[in-house]
């Protein structure tokens, strides 16, 4: 329960932050749209166990949260890492074993592709592989025992993302996990404990860092820079000052790049 309250509080905080940013332009003042270079995600998700195995038949639907960090490595291809935590109640102890609750922790690396539909919408898809652990708990009447089921997770994650601003976007993310568990079982139990499937539906916020280096100044922009620089700063409007700031920043980066390449 405490975790759910924490998730709700965090979500509210993120939502208010995002809405405050939503007033910003979704493009920079020059109208350019820089590529995303790095992103950090925070999300909550509903996790639905599925399949004819001890997970699908033994656990009820759960709720959880996660964090992802991703870095663009080449064009729109990205790699990253993620941590997730989900909470489930046991639905059928005859199938899964004599305990009442489980919390699933995943830590995995992923690689994927970020497809830019337009300046507002993105679609991402990635595949990840890593460590998974179910921490199982008995209730008081069962003896309060604790034990773990561990394995490796293969996760396919997609997301549909809407940009609230250049820095913040909101997204929905359906994903599918297949966990290959390392559980030793009695022969009579067959392969019921070999794998477990989860379908997740996440809602989250993505905080983006964008790459301005890739946007070269065009001639007209150079002219604008010179024009703005020639004017008295006190006479510039806020919008013009902002434009000047970005033009100077871009020009400085351009010169640094040129110096490096010499």
């Amino acid at each position, binding site marked *: 329960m405490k975790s759910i309250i924490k998730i709700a509080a965090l979500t509210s905080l993120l939502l208010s932050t995002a809405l405050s940013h939503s007033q910003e332009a979704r493009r920079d003042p020059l109208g350019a749209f820089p590529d995303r270079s790095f992103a950090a995600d925070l999300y909550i998700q509903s996790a639905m166990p599925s399949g004819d195995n001890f997970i699908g038949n033994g656990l009820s639907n759960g709720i959880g949260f996660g964090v992802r960090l991703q870095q663009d490595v080449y064009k729109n291809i990205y790699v990253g890492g993620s941590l997730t935590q989900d909470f489930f109640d046991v639905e059928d102890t*005859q199938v899964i074993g*004599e305990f009442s609750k489980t919390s699933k922790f995943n830590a995995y690396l992923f690689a994927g592709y970020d497809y830019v539909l337009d300046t507002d919408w993105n679609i991402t898809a990635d595949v990840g592989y890593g460590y998974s652990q179910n921490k199982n708990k008995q209730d008081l*009447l069962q*003896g309060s025992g604790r034990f773990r089921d561990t394995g490796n997770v293969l996760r396919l994650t997609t997301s549909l993302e809407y940009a609230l601003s250049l820095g913040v976007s909101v997204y929905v993310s359906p994903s599918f996990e297949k966990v290959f568990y390392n559980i030793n*079982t009695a022969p009579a139990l067959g392969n019921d404990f070999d794998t477990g499937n989860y379908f997740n539906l996440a809602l989250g916020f993505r905080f983006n860092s964008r790459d301005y280096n890739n946007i070269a100044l065009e001639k007209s922009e150079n002219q604008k820079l010179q024009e703005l620089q020639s004017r008295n700063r006190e006479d510039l409007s806020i919008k013009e000052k902002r434009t000047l700031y970005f033009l100077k920043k871009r020009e400085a980066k351009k010169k640094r790049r040129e110096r490096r390449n010499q």
Partner: protein
Amino acid sequence: MHAYGTQPLDQLGIYLQSQPMKKCILLLIAVLLLSCEARLDDDARAFFKTRIVDANGNPLQNADVQVTTFRTREFVRTNQAIPKFTEPDEDFILGQGVTDTNGEVAFTMLFDTTFRYYVTITSQNGDKTVVSAGIESFNDNLTLEIPLITIKDIADVQLDFINTSGTTDVFNVQVNYFALNCNEFFENNAFTIDEDCAFQNEIATQLNRAAGDGAFEFKAYYPSVINLTYTNESGTEFMEEFTINNPTERYEINY
């Protein structure tokens, strides 16, 4: 002035008795107790299977069957040494199920590497029977299969020693039987009386010291066996075995 490390123990003792230190120690104990986790085996699922019949061989239907594991209340250096305040044989439920019309029950179990497991059978009228087994009964494949468990009834047993030879010797008598406080122990596909009962289920006394001291009455599970040993003053030992198959049994032993 003493450096902290060279402070005399009595001074340290006085310091420990101060109120803030007491609170710190109590807090530390509370944290340690709360942080203790009773661990069952990770990454393991076992399987239990048996068939249960009553003393007449009829299948026992709708009986609750629980398999539990043993823990101690003491701290020792094993992963089983978590202090708890329940009865040892009710400590952790590894699995449970209900018998079908044929008296059969099978279920998935959690696993706990320990030396004793308890199968508690609760019939519809509330009677409980406990059968125990060791880890060797899992046969290294996480399967505890007890082919047949017979729920025993309780018999009133009477043993009468009658002096027909006229001897004046005083005999030492020992009677071993399946007492009500004992469990059956499943080992090598057979049942024995739990060795924990070895000192409790026997009558050890002297016979022929006074008139009428040869009559013994007790309750025992049946079907079961009574082992009787009596020794005369010259050290000659006599051994006899009796079976209990009925709700009331009476045997006469002539000496």
